[in-house]
């Protein structure tokens, strides 16, 4: 009898342990969104990729204020940029998406394609004031899936001391030929010409695109003569010692750090370094990236979109719209711009207001006006596939695996095969 009793306990303990495991797994799957509250009141969930802005920061307070204005509380969660996209996908899979997500713009079409983002029409948002070139990154098959809250892009920072020593006037740089001539003068004077990022990730494509588009190439034809010209420009700089060999492995941050050593004339980098440039040990300026034959090259846009994931309870959209509208007023845009060290507002009104406060940002405002979304031209979810081939071709061309021509031809063939 006693033995049976013991074994019964053992069985019970075993089953309890199994049950515990199962309940753990269940709890893991259940957490994440948690927005089963009432439609009109209660908590609205908000995800953004700014963990550096903690609770109590200006940004967090602004988000909270927009909730108060709409008569609800906002529960804000901050994720790392890449983690945010994955979290959004998982939440969409489990049907507990947050009400609002601030999402990196190339990811918008990915989520839209998965069918988990509501369109601006469904929300009743007016996007007519938003610059068309910025809004295009969130457009898929004629539908718009969100509003840009600001944009940043790439330009060329220069080191005034190095340029002075080489006798180069930055305003004289208007096309590729004059830029290359300037780099040669800088190299002759003992400094290094330019650094940038050609790493084998999305950053590499991001940095190459101004030259690619500046030559007149299109992402649908990676092996066009224009595209080859752009890659040959970079390759020529490496071969002639105008750019260091390290660019093949440089991230944008590494390129920036190289520039901060003071040994470089130029660096290709983004709006997010404006403050760091002001604090550098040398006077730094900025010019827009020139196109091959003069004028400004379209640089790719960076920056987040504010999107509203699909909810089973459509009654929530009304408040969601009010929250989004609160974040996207002209004053709201300028506030966002200041919070994030110069995010250029996506509307003409907002840009004017920003320039009134910071007249020195005019280069960036016009760079953003000339910029282009990577997922624009209805490329949408094709873009990541093309981009992977593009950065591979850049790496192959720069490192000498193959010639720029052959590298881009291979990229085009692979992209076509992958896109089916």
């Amino acid at each position, binding site marked *: 009898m006693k033995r049976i009793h013991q074994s019964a306990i053992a069985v019970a303990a075993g089953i309890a342990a199994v049950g515990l495991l199962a309940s753990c797994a269940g709890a893991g799957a259940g957490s994440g969104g948690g927005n089963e509250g009432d439609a009109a009141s209660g908590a609205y969930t908000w995800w953004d990729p700014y963990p550096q802005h903690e609770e109590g920061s200006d940004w967090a307070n602004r988000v909270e204020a927009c909730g108060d204005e709409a008569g609800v509380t906002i529960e804000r969660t901050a994720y790392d940029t890449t983690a945010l996209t994955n979290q959004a996908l998982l939440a969409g899979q489990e049907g507990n998406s947050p009400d609002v997500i601030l999402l990196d713009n190339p990811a918008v079409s990915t989520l839209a394609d998965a069918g988990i983002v509501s369109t601006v029409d469904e929300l009743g948002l007016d996007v007519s004031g938003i610059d068309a070139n910025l809004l295009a990154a969130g457009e898929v098959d004629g539908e718009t899936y969100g509003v840009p809250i600001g944009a940043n892009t790439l330009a060329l920072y220069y080191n005034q001391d190095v340029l002075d020593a080489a006798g180069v006037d930055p305003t004289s740089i208007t096309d590729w030929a004059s830029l290359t001539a300037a780099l040669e003068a800088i190299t002759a004077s003992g400094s290094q010409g330019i650094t940038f990022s050609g790493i084998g990730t999305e950053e590499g494509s991001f940095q190459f695109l101004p030259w690619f588009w500046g030559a007149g190439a299109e992402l649908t034809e990676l092996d066009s003569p224009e595209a080859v010209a752009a890659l040959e420009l970079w390759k020529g700089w490496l071969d002639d010692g105008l750019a260091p*060999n*390290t660019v093949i492995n440089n991230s944008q941050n590494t390129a920036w750090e190289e520039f901060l050593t003071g040994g470089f004339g130029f660096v290709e980098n983004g709006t997010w370094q404006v403050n760091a440039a002001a604090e550098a040990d040398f006077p730094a300026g900025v010019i827009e990236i020139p196109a091959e034959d003069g004028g400004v090259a379209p640089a790719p846009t960076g920056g987040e979109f504010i999107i509203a994931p699909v909810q089973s309870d459509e009654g929530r959209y009304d408040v969601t719209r009010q929250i989004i509208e609160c974040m996207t007023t002209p004053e709201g845009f300028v506030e966002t711009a200041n919070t994030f060290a110069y995010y250029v507002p996506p509307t003409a009104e907002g840009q004017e207001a920003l320039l009134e406060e910071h007249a020195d940002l005019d280069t960036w405002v016009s760079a953003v006006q000339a910029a282009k979304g990577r997922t624009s031209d209805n490329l949408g979810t094709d873009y990541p596939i093309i981009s992977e081939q593009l950065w591979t071709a850049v790496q192959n061309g720069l490192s000498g695996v193959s010639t720029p021509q052959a590298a881009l031809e291979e990229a085009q063939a692979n992209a076509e095969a992958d896109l089916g």
Partner: protein
Amino acid sequence: MTTTLAAATARRDGTAGAGGSTPPAPAPRSRRRGPRGSQWAAIGFAAPLLAYLAFFYAFPLWRNIELSVHDYTIRAFVQGEADFVGLQNYAQIFGSPLFGQALANTAFFTLVSIAVQFSIGLALAVFFRGAFRLSGFLRALFLVPWLLPLIVSASTWAWMLNSENGIVNSLIRAFGGTQINWLTSPETALLAVTIANIWLGIPFNLVILYSGLQNIPEEVYEAASLDGAGPWRQFWSITFPLLRPVSAITLLLGLVYTLKVVDVIWIMTTGGPGTTTTTLAIWSYREAFGTGQPDFSPAAAVGNLLIVIALVFGLLYLQLQRRQENR
């Protein structure tokens, strides 16, 4: 990458678990006293282990196989209705122009890493066997690569091998050589990441081989030296043969660890320039997480291929071990 190891472990644990849950049939004598009770107890005790194995080994493995035979696009991932495509993902992997290169890179990276790690590890183990002053301290120093977080050591290697400002090139230039673009030239990139990985793997080999050496009785060496065998002869006639079982498991574990290496290569070159340092593991990682467009199905197919490769070598090891036992 953990899947590979998990699979290997699961295989071994699995057999152990199965053996534990089905005890030898009880003798008829004990049946009268209520064998069902004790059998239930056995199941009860085994249940947590079985559930653990099912949750953390069988399910992920099954899920990986399932991923690889479906076409999981982002849309299918979210809405849960991926098309069954059979072996199409595998056909795509084998037909890819990257396959041959990735396989060759994996073979080079793994074999060179293991061979050099093992040789250096064994040499150091023999060296430290003769206990001398500070030998314990020095041996501890050799463990440092093991203790450092991988991101630290891989980044440090990347800086050291930097084309323009790296310390390695500074040295080469100081001795009158020309700059070598370690990580950015297609000729040297694979070698550079392999060197870094060898450095990382030496402590593992050192520790296991050193403990293996402790089990060789000192008398054997004494007898050998009485017979007039020099150090070289002692190594090849005593140390090496007696260390064979330990060597075999060291090599197998090293193989499994090296096959699944992603972090070192990813941090140093992201598989580049171009695809010149893309191994199978890097390829799988890039498909799944390295682009803006997660492609889980081909990634899972490559991952399964890695599991199969590790499994083949695992079986080879078991075969060798059995033959040795039968001898």
